[in-house]
């Protein structure tokens, strides 16, 4: 009974799915294929390497400090960093007093201790980075309806994220001749910017890092567009996962110990099984 029922059900599902297949195949064969510029001309992120890459990577704290400066002076006008607290900046190589001073440079929402009114006050290490907009509606209204995303986790929220951020920042330009030739109708809508590293090629964010020396680095590093983009990408890799280096560094002793223990376990197993094996006939 089970086998007859199963047979009928099996044939049933097969017929229905093959009918779907037939219809799909017919449509696939007869329909005109419409290509789209974004499929063909969207590029994968550039190859770029950072000090923190790889199993033995370390933070380049000088670079992170520069990246923090770029975030503060350029990105922070529109993008929040709401999962990061000022106290976390200690990871960048700042001491306690420096962290306090850095936090005090920001203005965060607070409460008047006497009247209870909403006020703004200088940040303290325990505060989180403030959002440039009071809410999403204000953010959308101020940015042509495109809400600038929070950057705390950006490099983890995109495939190959650190390289993606770097590529996006340095990827602004004009559509290539090839694209124009193939898709003459393609145009970037007003208010958007062409960027071949963005999935649909048209990015709501105008080029943020435009010219060399847009920020002035304290450590004397030449602030080229490329350098600033790289620095802020590294900084965002840190904001996305401050425990990255701690994680990799604690991984090695764990794996080393496991390897040792597993080799021991292998020989113990061999030793124990040797009692069972020799009986094997010649």
């Amino acid at each position, binding site marked *: 009974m089970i086998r007859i029922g199963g047979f009928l059900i*099996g044939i049933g599902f097969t017929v229905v799915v093959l009918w779907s297949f037939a*219809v799909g195949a017919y449509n696939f064969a007869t329909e005109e294929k419409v290509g789209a510029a974004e499929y063909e001309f969207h590029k994968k992120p550039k190859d770029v390497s950072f000090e923190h890459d790889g199993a033995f990577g370390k933070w380049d704290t000088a670079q992170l400090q520069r990246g923090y400066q770029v975030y503060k002076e350029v990105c922070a006008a529109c993008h929040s960093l709401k999962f990061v607290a000022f106290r976390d900046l200690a990871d960048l190589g700042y001491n306690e007093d420096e962290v306090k001073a850095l936090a005090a440079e920001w203005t965060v929402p607070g409460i008047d201790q006497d009247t209870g009114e909403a006020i703004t006050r200088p940040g303290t290490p325990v505060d989180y980075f403030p959002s440039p907009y009071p809410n999403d509606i204000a953010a959308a209204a101020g940015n042509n309806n495109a809400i600038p995303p929070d950057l705390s986790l950006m490099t983890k929220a995109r495939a190959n994220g650190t390289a993606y951020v770097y590529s996006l920042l340095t990827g602004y330009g004009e559509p290539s001749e090839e694209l124009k030739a193939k898709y003459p109708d393609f145009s970037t809508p007003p208010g958007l910017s062409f960027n071949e590293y963005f999935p649909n090629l048209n990015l709501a964010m105008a080029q943020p890092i435009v010219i060399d020396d847009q920020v002035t680095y304290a450590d004397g590093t030449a602030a080229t567009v490329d350098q600033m983009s790289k620095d802020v990408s590294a900084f965002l890799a840190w904001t996305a996962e401050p425990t990255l280096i701690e994680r990799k560094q604690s991984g090695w002793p764990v794996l080393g110990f496991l390897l040792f223990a597993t080799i021991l376990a292998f020989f113990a*197993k061999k030793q124990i099984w040797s009692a069972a094996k020799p009986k094997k006939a010649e």
Partner: protein
Amino acid sequence: MSFPWAREYQPTNGLMKFFDEKLPLPRLVYNAVGAGYPVPRNLSYFWNFGVLAGFFLMVQIVTGVVLAMHYAANSEVAFFQVEHIMRDVNWGWLMRYAHANGAHFFFIVVYFHIFRGLFYSSYKAPREMIWLLGVVIFLLMMATAFMGYVLPWGQMSFWGAKVITGLFGAIPLVGEPLQVWLVGGYAPDNAALNRFFSLHFLLPFVILGVVILHVWALHIPGSSNPTGVEVKKESDTLPFHPYYTAKDGFGLGVALILYLGLVFFLPNILGHPDNYIEANPLATPAHILPEWYFFPFYAILRAFTVDFILSAKLWGVLAMFASILVWFFLPWLDKSPVRSGHYRPMFRKFFWFGLIPCMVVLFICGGAPAEEPYVMLSQIATAYYFLHFLVFLPLISSIEKPEPLPYSITEAVLGTDEDAKLPASDAAKA
């Protein structure tokens, strides 16, 4: 239960004797995974995965309980709480990555475990109950994993919850109210998040209970083995301890190296970047995907694209559930008296050149965007999937000529077995 030559537990000291008289837990352990459990001596490394699955269940329970100490099931703060765990809680990043990747490894080892069961027909009499309980465990795992994935309240969490609960909307008549009831609203929000958290905490313990039944049922006929020939006598077996504890210990070491290698160095490789974006009910990610372990079932769901008496959506849902439910009937669909695929030439061909490629295609298509050629490929693979289990397997078992089996496990391992030369009636006595 067990074989007459199984060793008897002997308490070695007064305390153990006390326990053995009042609450014979040491005896239970001894008979379950100790020297008192005789196991076929020819088990291959494919038999390691059961113990590994149990291990990863424990990893998930321990890390999960720890994470629950820091998490808050509220859609306003859930995403932030997960970041709090990652950034501020001592070793929180380790706990979370161990839990997320523990889920991946739990499924990896369970898939190997199922694969072994399918190839060696471990579902056949007298082990039907073990198999049925195993399928129940797998279903519970899927439910638990799905609800756990919702908890971080990222984009994939939210849209996964929305799409999967949306499947219930396909059920005629009751579908829509059922869907609203399931999520406690018109779209997943606080109510859904809270009930998923509650159930996600509960279900692992239910799984643990069913696992205990699964192991209990296993100890009645004893373990299967690669020849599929039942144990006949003592020389066919070895005590579980120390032989298989040692072997499982080594296997566990290898599994841990792979698992912790991923946890420490590539913890996000099996996850999806979109889940690091906070849930946004107003914007669907470009490609919504379940976690990789659901890909084959997701591919089957999406393979039905054309209405045929019933709506395509309903067909997809039915087929997806049927694709797992069919496993419940395997013991009665495959009637071949031979268990092991090693001695079944026709079954073996269909297995390696039919089912395995079919599963590979379903895995790939389930993770691919819903466009050609993936849809057409998944349709062919879906058709094969149902044909394999419901049509081919019963047919093969009636027309196939199995290859000669070894007389006993002893013969398979040692090359000869003296009892094989005796008349059958004497051999049974030996």
